[in-house]
């Protein structure tokens, strides 16, 4: 007879083995925060990475940015998780950290890196991120504050939530200031031709804004008219250099990057890849919303390398959402669709999910290109909000592998796989404990302590040639393992509760969704107990 609980454990271990964690995310964040030099991004030496990790951890503990109990709680999930969690928190720009005060002049360490990272992300920092906070830092933040019409501290804190900052900018400037002109010289003839809808763009602009201001009247007469020879390129050149326009161009690139539509460099240059990403996102929203927004509603090519972009429409329609951010509900909803699907669809969905997982692990490699970091965004809040907008489509998008939205789907499911990985780890750990297979080992092959903690609470310990140091180490390790175990059992409990409900049809893909939900609710419970 098959020991089915062991079979279950083996299946979970097999699933876990399919995950590849090569530390790419941690490496990227260490580069972003200046613990590793950008120039070395394409071939980071393992020794340098170890030193960078150690320095980050030291500065993290010294920074006072997080409460000691919060630091201790995240340690329960292991060292990799700990580093990744705090590095992500520091580089997050949709649910990021808010500073109580700016660093002092001359201050080095995590706080100054953090401020420089945010400036760098928005194209306002040209020096090493690791530089001490100085007058240049203060000046650059001042420039950002000018764009944001706020104080320097508010400006840095606005970058903790780019959606909020975008809403603030939309409320702070006249509508017409979001009609942007920019120049991009290396655009293919094919794309220019596709986007050459100057007159249609102008007509739409007239419908939306009329000709109520001098700027709008000037645009209609000297830029968006039918006669190409009468386009005022001098005016466009001046407009494209306006600091607000330049900032908005970067902001749009950041929005596109956050949502997975844009995977190129953050360089404030709306080149071929950026423009294609704008087209992709409009097409995705059309698909999701059942609308038929034409590209000329948003963007047109004018001539001489100049483009005009209706950032007001783009930001309001697509980039600022007020949808919920409860990720757990999103996956629960998808689990419901998996549950109700027929066997054939479920099998196809599972196969595509596996393919997604492989693609997600491949996309997360950071590299250096022309002095810039080619990186991916690891925050999820914004994506989750977006996913609620697309909620009723996602199952089908995965099932049918819709090419147009695959970039977005990949980005969204990166969060799913991360939670699945952590959930599986906890679940496997919990089952091993229940099956009596869990040991705590400290020491070396000749001097060691082993404790076996049985699920019923019995403990047997064997001490071989171990001195007081190993004893202390073993006590610490046992405490750590025990608190991790309590968490693992909470995950196991959540899964078991769901799995044994009457009439519950458990299939593998459904179990994976249950695992993600169980991990998230156990984590939320743990974090609440720490913060309250």
């Amino acid at each position, binding site marked *: 007879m098959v020991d*089915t609980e062991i079979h279950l454990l083996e299946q979970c271990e097999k699933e876990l083995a399919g995950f590849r964690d090569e530390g790419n995310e941690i490496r990227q964040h260490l580069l972003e925060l200046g613990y590793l030099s950008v120039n070395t991004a394409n071939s980071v030496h393992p020794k340098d990475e170890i030193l960078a990790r150690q320095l980050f951890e030291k500065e993290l503990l010294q920074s006072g940015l997080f409460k000691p109990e919060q630091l201790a709680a995240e340690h329960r999930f292991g060292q990799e998780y700990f580093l990744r969690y705090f590095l992500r928190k520091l580089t997050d720009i949709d649910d990021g950290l808010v500073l109580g005060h700016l660093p002092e002049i001359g201050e080095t360490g995590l706080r100054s890196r953090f401020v420089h990272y945010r400036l760098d992300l928005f194209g306002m920092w040209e020096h090493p991120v690791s530089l001490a906070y100085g007058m240049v830092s203060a000046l650059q933040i001042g420039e950002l504050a000018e764009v944001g019409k706020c104080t320097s501290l508010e400006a840095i804190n606005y970058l903790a939530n780019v959606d909020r900052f975008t809403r603030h900018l939309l409320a702070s400037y006249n509508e017409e200031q979001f009609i942007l002109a920019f120049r991009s010289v290396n655009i293919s003839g094919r794309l220019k031709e596709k986007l050459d809808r100057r007159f249609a763009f102008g007509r739409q602009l007239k419908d939306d804004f009329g000709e109520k201001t001098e700027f709008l009247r000037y645009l209609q007469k000297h830029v968006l008219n039918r006669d190409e020879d009468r386009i005022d390129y001098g005016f466009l050149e001046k407009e494209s250099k306006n600091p607000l326009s330049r900032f908005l161009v970067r902001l749009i690139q950041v929005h596109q990057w956050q949502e997975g539509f844009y995977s190129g460099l953050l360089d404030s240059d709306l080149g071929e890849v950026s423009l294609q990403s704008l087209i992709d996102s409009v097409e995705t929203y059309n698909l999701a919303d059942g609308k038929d927004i034409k590209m000329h509603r948003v963007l047109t090519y004018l001539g001489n390398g100049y483009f005009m972009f209706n950032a007001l429409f783009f930001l309001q329609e697509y980039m600022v959402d007020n949808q919920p951010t409860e990720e757990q509900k999103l996956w629960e909803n998808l689990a419901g669709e998996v549950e109700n699907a027929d066997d054939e669809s479920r099998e196809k969905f599972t196969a595509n999910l596996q393919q997604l997982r492989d693609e997600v692990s491949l996309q997360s490699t950071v590299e250096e290109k022309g002095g810039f970091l080619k990186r991916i965004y690891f925050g999820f809040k914004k994506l989750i909000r977006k996913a609620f907008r697309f909620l009723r489509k996602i199952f089908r998008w995965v099932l049918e592998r819709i090419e147009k939205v695959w970039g977005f789907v990949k980005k969204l499911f990166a969060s799913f796989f991360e939670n699945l990985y952590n959930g599986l780890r906890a679940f496997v750990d919990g089952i091993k404990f229940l099956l009596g*297979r869990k040991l705590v*080992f400290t020491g070396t092959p000749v001097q060691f302590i082993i404790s076996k903690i049985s699920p019923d609470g019995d403990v047997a310990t064997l001490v071989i040639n171990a001195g007081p140091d190993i004893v202390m180490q073993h006590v610490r390790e046992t405490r750590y393992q025990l608190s991790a175990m309590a968490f693992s059992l909470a995950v196991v409990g959540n899964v*078991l509760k769901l799995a044994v409900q009457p009439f519950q049809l*458990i299939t593998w893909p459904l179990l994976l969704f249950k695992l993600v939900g169980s991990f998230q609710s156990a984590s939320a419970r743990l974090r609440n107990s720490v913060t309250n």
Partner: protein
Amino acid sequence: MATEINDEGKKNLKSGFARLIKRIGDEIEDAASLEVTTFTGNFEYKVSDVVRNGEDKVQIEKVLKSLTVQNQSTLELVAFTSVKIDSDVSTIVKKNLSPADDALLKLHKEMLVTSKEARQSLIQLVKDLL
């Protein structure tokens, strides 16, 4: 990615969960009493014989038993504590403790705390399930 989608797969999953729950039930019955045992020794022994991949593949108790039976070592009991559900506690401690044994006795006390916490985790799991 595993695909427990066919009927046999679904049956295995269901049965796996059922057996896990039964196992938790069995463990909770045994949790009425706690036994904490600490041994020490200085014999030549390869850690790989006891642990493989961080798992207790060969059962630590069996190893201890075989070592004692075969008299291969100077394996000694440092302390044994039994705690009954009615809080009745009995402890056996090695005679003539040396200063070096002091650390081991402290370790034993820590393991007693661990034992209680481990039982508490199991009780919490059962409470969660109810």
